[in-house]
């Protein structure tokens, strides 16, 4: 269809008609809330009796929680790739995807911090990290950069929303009455004056530039939690870029999945077109290729030398206890998707969404492979300890506590996307050639 025929009124109504509380929303939120309550009950058991309710023990001391943390930090990195890297080099087709990417970034970054608390033996001493802060410890760096990245992402989500909210609270009659004052105060008296636009645009630009080092830092530092140790499988110099490229894979897949469901549920076919899915498919294929390159470096080089400690670790991964998981993740979650995505027909909305789901699930298990097997292969033998110290197996309570962050992320994404336009209204109007917004 011809985009230029879209009037401002139609754009406004297309992008805001979903902002209302309906039955589907209530059922979905009810489901999420009940699930979260179950998971929080599991966490309360851990709070009462200690980390022993989880399967982690003295050898595998970092289990699902930490793998999950790495995954969440990874997924949050997509805000940087879409908005900052691709946005700053001027890719115009990204406009309708930027807010989805920022929403995902904010949700995953916010929850990543909570996951770390669930992994603490003494969560009530969280403040000690600041009171007794030791700048030598990568944990302090991680806490600092994740907070920074979260704040930057939140601002980057908010600034483009100012103009949208200014329009909507004046022009959209269907806006729920309780939302109107919220929109009004959050729109900060924006009236589309040139100087206002100038301030916002300049601020966004500064944020985009700041976002790149912040995002690179969060995942590089997260990789250093492992790479600063001398353990086989973690003692690697490519861990920083290996993690960052892997993060883009997970994040791009998450964005494609979100795009698919927003397009379907909020009827955004005119805005999230096949072209967008096609292009995001190309982005996912590209970052997957980069990740594959780092995987080859990460496994082939030590695998060629087979130093003693590395050999034990790699043999378990390639042909031992973890081999099935390893190969399914590497082939099914990386190599095969890349091959499929080379063909245009697999970059249509439905196939690329299905591929993205496979990639995202594999991305989670990839974190499991990075975090857990290394600890089952320490330098000195594991002896005279109970069987569950030797082999890690997650408990039910631990699994529930691991699921909780996913539910939280879904709740955050659902709320943001339900009460704000999923696609930037003001920017879309501009790009369709509508220069001045009619406010009344």
């Amino acid at each position, binding site marked *: 269809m011809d985009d230029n025929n879209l009037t401002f009124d139609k754009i406004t109504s297309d992008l805001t008609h979903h902002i209302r509380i309906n039955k589907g929303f209530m059922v979905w939120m009810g489901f999420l809330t009940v699930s979260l309550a179950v998971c929080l009950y599991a966490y309360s058991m851990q709070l009462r*009796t*200690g*980390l*022993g309710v989880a399967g*982690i*023990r*003295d*050898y595998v*001391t*970092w289990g699902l929680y930490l793998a999950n943390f790495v995954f969440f930090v990874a997924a949050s990195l997509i805000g940087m790739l879409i908005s900052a890297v691709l946005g700053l080099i001027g890719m115009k087709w990204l406009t309708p995807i930027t807010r989805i990417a920022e929403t995902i970034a904010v949700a995953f970054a916010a929850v990543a911090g909570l996951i770390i608390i669930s*992994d*603490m*033996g*003494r969560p009530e*001493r*969280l403040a*000690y*990290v600041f*009171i*007794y*802060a*030791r700048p*030598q*410890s*990568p*944990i*302090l760096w991680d806490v600092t950069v994740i907070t920074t990245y979260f704040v930057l992402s939140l601002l980057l989500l908010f600034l483009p929303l100012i103009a949208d909210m200014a329009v909507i609270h004046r022009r959209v009659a269907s806006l729920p009455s309780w939302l109107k004052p919220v929109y009004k105060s959050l729109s900060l008296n924006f009236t589309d004056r040139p100087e206002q636009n100038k301030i916002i645009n300049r601020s966004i630009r500064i944020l985009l530039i700041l976002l790149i080092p912040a995002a690179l830092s969060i995942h590089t530092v997260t990789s250093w*939690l*492992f790479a*600063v*140790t*001398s*353990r086989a499988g973690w003692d690697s110099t490519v861990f920083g870029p290996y993690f960052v490229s892997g993060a883009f894979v997970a994040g791009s897949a998450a964005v494609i999945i979100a795009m698919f469901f927003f397009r379907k549920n909020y009827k955004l076919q005119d805005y999230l077109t096949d072209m967008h899915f096609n292009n995001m498919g190309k982005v996912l294929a590209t970052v997957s290729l980069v990740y594959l390159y780092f995987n080859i470096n990460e496994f082939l080089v030590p695998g060629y030398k087979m130093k003693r400690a590395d050999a034990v670790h790699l043999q378990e991964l390639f042909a031992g206890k973890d081999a099935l998981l390893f190969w399914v993740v590497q082939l099914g979650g990386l190599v095969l998707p890349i091959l499929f995505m080379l063909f245009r027909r697999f970059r249509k909305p439905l196939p690329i969404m299905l591929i993205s789901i496979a990639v995202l699930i594999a991305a989670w298990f990839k974190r499991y492979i990075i975090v857990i097997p290394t*600890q089952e292969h*320490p*330098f*000195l*033998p*594991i*002896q*005279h*300890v*109970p*069987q*569950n*110290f030797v082999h890690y197996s997650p408990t039910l309570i631990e699994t529930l506590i691991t699921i909780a962050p996913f539910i939280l992320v879904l709740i955050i994404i659902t709320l943001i996307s339900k009460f704000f336009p999923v696609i930037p209204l003001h920017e879309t109007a501009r790009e369709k050639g509508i220069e001045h917004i009619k406010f009344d």
Partner: protein
Amino acid sequence: MDDSNTPHSNNESENQKGSSRRDFLKNLGLAGVGVAAGAAALYSGHIFEAKKEVSGDQKVLLTQDGKLVQVDSLEIKALEKNGKELHETLGREGIPGRRWVMVTDLSKCRNARKCINACQGAHQLRPEQYHMNTLQMQDTPGTAPYNMPKNCQHCDNPPCVAVCPVDATYKRPDGIVLIENDRCIGCRFCMAACPYSARIFNWIEPKDAANHQGEEYNVELNVPQKLGTISKCLFSADRLREGKLPYCVEACPNSVYYFGDENEDAVTNGTTKETVRLSKLLRDNGGYQLMPELGTKPRVYYLPPKNRLFPFEEAKDATPEKV
């Protein structure tokens, strides 16, 4: 309006009255200062005199840093043994002038596990919690197996201390790496960083926690153990402070352990109580460290398992199936 109240009044008598009132106040102030000064002088003189009371009984004492001093017996006060003070100051400062070192003779270990029992008893540990564990080692398929007691290596370049976000684990000047479980947040980064798997975690309520509730925390013994915090070998810092050998060293029936001070170049065998030169012991027996290539600089040396006094036997596990 009364003229005398205005600053420009030139009434003489009023002026004089005013000036004499000022003088009076001035003198009164001076007198006050004088009295206070006199009283202070008298009081400090009294204190001085009181202090001069001596028994005449002079005692000769050895200070912590090894100096002999002479003090009047009246001035000697017993140091209050305050656990809080201990773990906030002495616990971090260590024992001055010392560089503790351990030598483990692998040719003598028959896996009697007496060291483990003594250690677990002293530190309130469960059977599967080891500060000291004897491992059955075989370096390569062609070489002979041997028993290797393994504890915290008290590295001079400790990876665990480097990564701790809250300074809960720290390196003391006397070489000991300690852990303050009042501070530990339970992130377990130190466990991930330690290449010797020397650290343990209190996953569940520590052994007999109910019995030890309310006991004052002793950082040099790391008891009572606390749920959700790290524990590990402390070189028995509490025993060293009393001038005794560590629990494990003393408990060994097979003369495996030597313990002592690197500064004195002397180590004492825990079983025979024989004291030998550290440098000579290491030189004559080919002493080595565990994984020195990692750059951790351990303070535990091993003597190789040559001319073993006991045949190697497969160890039997006494630990529970699941914890």
